[in-house]
């Protein structure tokens, strides 16, 4: 069966520090991969999606970047965090063949202080 791992679960970082969140998927090949951000009490905002290794599309201009060094690995990064980067970050995958429902990781609660 397919599983998605996302870490860390919580992170407290000072303003101006770098960020690296990692997500890996097991049990499937060639998935579409996504990074979403969720503000408290709100819906999900798509940040990045990837349809293959090295292929990244950004949905909103921001202080973050994403990379996909391997087929089932997706990384969210920042060189210098801002206060506004605080939020709940979710990685997700969908099957390439169908592009339908998303399977989410357990999320990372990021607090930038």
């Amino acid at each position, binding site marked *: 069966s397919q599983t998605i791992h*996302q870490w860390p679960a919580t992170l407290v970082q000072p303003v101006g520090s770098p960020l690296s969140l990692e997500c890996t998927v097991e049990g499937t090949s060639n998935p*579409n991969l*996504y990074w979403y951000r969720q503000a408290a*009490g*709100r*819906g*999900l905002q*798509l940040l990045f*999606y990837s*349809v293959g290794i090295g292929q990244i599309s950004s*949905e909103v201009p921001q202080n973050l970047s994403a990379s996909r060094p391997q087929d089932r690995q997706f990384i969210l990064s920042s060189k210098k965090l801002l206060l506004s980067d605080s939020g709940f970050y*979710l990685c*997700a995958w*969908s099957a390439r063949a*169908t*592009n*339908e*429902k*998303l*399977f*989410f*990781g*357990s*999320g990372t*609660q990021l607090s930038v202080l």
Partner: protein
Amino acid sequence: GESVGLHLPTLSVQEGDNSIINCAYSNSASDYFIWYKQESGKGPQFIIDIRSNMDKRQGQRVTVLLNKTVKHLSLQIAATQPGDSAVYFCAENIIPSNAGKSTFGDGTTLTVKP
């Protein structure tokens, strides 16, 4: 622009009652709709989906209804249980062209009272 929105941000029901969560969408080109359940501190989980060529789809204790004429989607939960307490999101997409980039509503918080 297109948006997916929910009629009510919160819903409180008695255990054992049926729950109905509503959702409006504005993109008439959307052809695939999904309901997700998100428990506190966790990622959303898929509940049920429906394609635009269907009006109704049933799962275990859940039913999704789609009214394309008024661009309305609903999730019905039968015999609501305390474990159903969560935030419920509807999402819409265009398959396969949107590469799974669903647009999410803000969510409805369902509280089940014992």
